[in-house]
């Protein structure tokens, strides 16, 4: 354990020493002292004139109560003073972000956020029993298993970073679950096992297939996103199920967690036949404790439900780039969820500042600027809580018409891909290629790879090369697999030189897999985390203006690998058992013969008549025949 902790502190040092950023000292302080972080949250700019300099995303994320006010202050065109919401113990916000992608696809991202200033991890006597907006099923799970943080995502399809840029919240194909347990939990593995089974029931997913063979405890890669200073990775469990197929039966229970269900508000748009007829679909639930107020005197629980979907209307719809809410979801919006304190639709119009590329109807003059993942974006905002948004028809159908062709492809700053090299079913090599497209900045990247036990990794063959030179990882944490018990876990910190391609290769051997009639297995995606961040907040902040030059934190997932495995032929187990036993018996028989018998001269036995005669003679008592 001590070794792991040393490793962790090493990462922190590297991360922060690599920051070429004026506020890096500030950040370092915060990271080292969590109470300082909490205090710094109080510095939220209630004054609208304060620019990003004193702000960081952490403040915003943790105190999302301030959304309305900050939004108001930053809208460039008009100032719409939002009425200050009554201080409720719990509140709910919903929003939809639509981003036309450069490839012609449309990216729609729903976010539903429920805040509740209660504490599930209280003493057993004061059990939380009255639920209003927060789903009771999840609340009970949190208190029963002493969960401090829970992140679960179900994804169908692979996010194509090269064509679509960075998603707001990345997720690997299949199911991903990671949980930080409270430090009072004594039997973490037992809790984890039970929790996966319960979640499996709640989400109608095969999370019950999560067991010790695909669970890892990353030492540095998955830090808690919410409050809390625990870094002891004994209380962290991470598992992915790359084979998980996501479909309607997972969406329905997910929708039921929303306060308005799919009856009102943005959730009306979630019609399964449309959502699953898309290139990419990802739904997630993130639960974490955050600061409830500016002073961070009390803790609140945040439940964030996100659903990201990419529609390929361009390729499937006769090459037209027009889209509307009705075209995408076969529904239009008629009202906001009555329980929501804020309900908004954002459309990314960054590429269209003067309105020459496309035209939005109905038009809005409410604009919002935000720095999302280091990128300055402009958004048109539609506030669904206001009646004028819906017009005379009492229905809101957003429509976008293209006037000309869009600009060139954007190249994502950081992306990764992975493949298996080699032929045959004996050995192979996993290649991971990470691209840093930034022209002059180097990024430190934390790689995490969890490989199932039936691929025997040889860590001495691990090579990291960038720009055809050896790039030695500054931190390696490796936990070898145990057959049928534990997967391999490989974590390393690599510095990506600017404008470079870094290749990580490691050789493996395939085990003869047993009792599994499938001859191929999916290796989960590798997680690459750029640790270049000033705050540990990968959850997409709800369009807060942040400091433009701020560096940020990005998690990149590679595609899962499909690896063929040699299998025994199970069509004839009895034959094999019989034949092998025969050979052993031949050995036994011949040794037994030689050991117990002696050599004798072979005397032919007398004919039957003679033996009979001798038998009779013996009875009669006369001498036998010779």
């Amino acid at each position, binding site marked *: 354990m001590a070794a792991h902790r040393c490793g962790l502190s090493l990462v922190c040092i590297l991360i922060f020493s690599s920051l070429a950023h004026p506020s890096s000292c500030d950040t370092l302080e915060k990271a080292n002292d969590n109470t300082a972080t909490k205090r710094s949250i109080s510095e939220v700019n209630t004054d609208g004139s304060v620019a990003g300099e004193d702000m960081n995303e952490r403040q915003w994320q943790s105190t999302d109560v301030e959304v309305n006010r900050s939004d108001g202050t930053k809208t460039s065109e008009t100032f719409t003073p939002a009425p200050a919401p009554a201080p409720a113990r719990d509140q709910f916000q919903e929003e939809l972000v639509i981003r036309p992608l450069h490839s012609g696809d449309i990216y729609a991202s729903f976010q539903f956020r429920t805040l509740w200033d209660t504490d599930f991890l209280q003493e057993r006597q004061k059990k939380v029993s009255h639920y209003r907006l927060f789903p009771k099923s999840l609340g009970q799970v949190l208190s029963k298993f002493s969960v401090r943080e829970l992140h679960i995502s179900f994804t169908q399809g692979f996010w194509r970073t090269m064509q679509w840029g960075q998603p707001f919240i990345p997720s690997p194909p299949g199911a991903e679950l990671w949980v930080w347990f409270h430090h009072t939990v004594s039997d973490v593995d037992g809790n984890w096992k039970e929790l996966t089974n319960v979640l499996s029931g709640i989400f109608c997913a095969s999370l019950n297939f999560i067991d010790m063979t695909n669970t890892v405890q990353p030492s540095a890669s998955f830090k808690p996103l919410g409050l809390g200073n625990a870094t002891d990775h004994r209380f962290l469990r991470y598992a992915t199920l790359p084979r998980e197929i996501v479909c309607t039966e997972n969406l329905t229970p997910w929708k039921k967690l929303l306060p308005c269900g799919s009856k009102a508000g943005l959730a009306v748009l979630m019609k399964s036949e449309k959502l699953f007829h898309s290139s990419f679909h990802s739904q997630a639930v993130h639960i974490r404790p955050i600061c409830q107020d500016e002073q961070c005197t009390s803790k609140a629980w945040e439940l964030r439900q996100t659903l990201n979907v990419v529609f390929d209307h361009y390729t499937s719809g006769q090459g037209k780039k027009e889209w509307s809410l009705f075209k995408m979801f076969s529904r239009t919006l008629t009202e906001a969820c009555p329980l929501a304190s804020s309900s908004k639709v954002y459309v990314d119009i960054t590429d269209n500042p003067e309105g020459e590329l496309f035209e939005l109807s109905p038009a809005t003059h409410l604009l919002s600027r935000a720095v999302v993942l280091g990128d300055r974006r402009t958004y048109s905002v539609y506030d669904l809580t206001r009646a004028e948004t819906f017009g005379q028809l009492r229905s809101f159908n957003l429509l976008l018409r293209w006037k000309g062709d869009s600009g060139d492809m954007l190249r994502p700053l950081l992306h990764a891909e992975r493949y298996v090299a080699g032929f045959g*079913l004996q050995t192979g090599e996993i290649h991971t290629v990470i691209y840093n497209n930034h022209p002059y900045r180097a990024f430190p990247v934390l790689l995490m790879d969890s490989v199932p036990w039936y691929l025997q990794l040889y860590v001495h063959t691990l090579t990291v090369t960038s720009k055809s030179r050896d790039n030695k990882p500054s931190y*390696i944490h490796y936990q070898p697999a145990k057959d049928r018990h534990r997967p391999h876990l490989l974590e390393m910190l690599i510095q990506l030189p600017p404008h470079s391609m870094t290749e990580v290769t490691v050789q493996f051997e395939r085990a003869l897999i047993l009792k599994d009639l499938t001859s191929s297995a999916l290796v989960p995606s590798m997680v690459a985390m750029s640790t270049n961040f000033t705050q540990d907040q990968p959850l997409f902040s709800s369009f807060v203006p942040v400091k433009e030059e701020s560096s940020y934190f990005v998690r990149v997932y590679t595609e899962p690998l499909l690896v063929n495995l040699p299998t025994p032929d199970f069509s004839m187990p009895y034959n094999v058992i019989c034949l092998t036993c025969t050979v052993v018996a031949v050995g036994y028989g*011949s040794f037994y013969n*030689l*050991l117990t018998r002696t050599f004798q*001269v072979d005397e032919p036995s007398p004919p039957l008549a003679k033996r009979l005669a001798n038998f009779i003679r013996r009875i009669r008592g006369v001498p036998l025949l010779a």
Partner: protein
Amino acid sequence: MAAPLTLLLIVAVTIRAVLFRSSLAELISERVEVVSPLNAWKRVVEGLALLDLGVSPYSGDVFHETPLMIYLFHFTVDYAEIVFMIADGITAVALYLSIQTYNKNVFRKQKYALESDRYPADCLELLRSPKEMFYIPLKVAMFYLLNPFTILSCVAKSTCGLNNAIIALFIFCTLKGSALLSGILLALATYQSIYPLTLFAPALLFFLQRLYIPVNLRRSSFWFFTLQYAFIYVGSLVVITGLSFFLLGSWDFIPSVYGFIFSVPDLTPNIGLFWYFFAEMFEHFRLFFICVFQINVFFYTIPLSIKLKEHPVFLIFMQIAIISIFKSYPTVGDVALYMAFLPAWSHLYRFLRNIFLVSCVLLACSALFPVLWHLWIYAGSANSNFYYAITLLFNFGQILLVSDYFYAYLRREHHLIHGLYLKKKDGTEATLVLK
């Protein structure tokens, strides 16, 4: 005799050095016939790499060498090729000297028996002449050093070569009569791969015979010597194991090395009988059949010791062969060790019943191993049953070979007592049968 041996050693080292430098070396070191999970060089390097990363090499399922092996290669990992060539050389020289000593003993015994007129008149042609015995030690060394199996094993840097060297040294010390060294080396061999513990019986029998102590359970001298030898053996074993504990500071290696040998969790194909059987075996019966299969190695020791108590060296050969057939992760290196003894039994050729068949089976199997492996793993046009069939046949051939030699040995001994040309009661020529 030193000159031909030196020449042989030079030739053997040259062949190995050339192969080490060629592109074949990497290909050979991946062959499942040559390396097993227990002795693959790649896994040794991996274990050392894990140690460098600060991870216990036994925490994973990749490294199954003993701690002393780590210690050895910690210093010699850069000279591994030389270490393996030296190990092969040591094995060959030890076998050479052992067989030389053994032949001297055999000849002396034969002379005494002849002088005391103990042999029947018609079996003079069964007696061994110094002329034919002269080249046997050299042939033994040659059979070991130039055997393709040994060469492959050495080029793959399979640690099996080192285990063979320890066993060969043990045989040498035993035949030279040094009970202390023999006990220590036997303990070392046991520590390396458990199975050589069955060689305790033949070594004990040899010493008893050498000291003219009859095997009689009522005699105190028998018990005195047995306990003495057992004490040396067990004592060295305890010391070596304790030393390993102090080297790594944990007992992790016990389950990872010996547990791995006994419970056969890794079912990577090899030339043995275990892998496919346990791949197909129903989980419910696994433990039972593991016991049934593992017991085969130890099962024959006592009956063989009783039957061959006058012939401990042949008993050593039988035991090594049985280990190589029935061990859980056999490689061709193990086969090579007992095959090296075959020239020592060259006088048994006239009694071998199916040596031609066995040679053909073994040769064909050796050729078919890579072919069917390629068809299964690379070409995808065959399945695992093909490779399994060949391993089955190979083991069948080995069993036939060993039982044939056993038969021939027993038959020769029978003829040496009862005469070569046996007659029936009615005076016609008789055939000898086992009854």
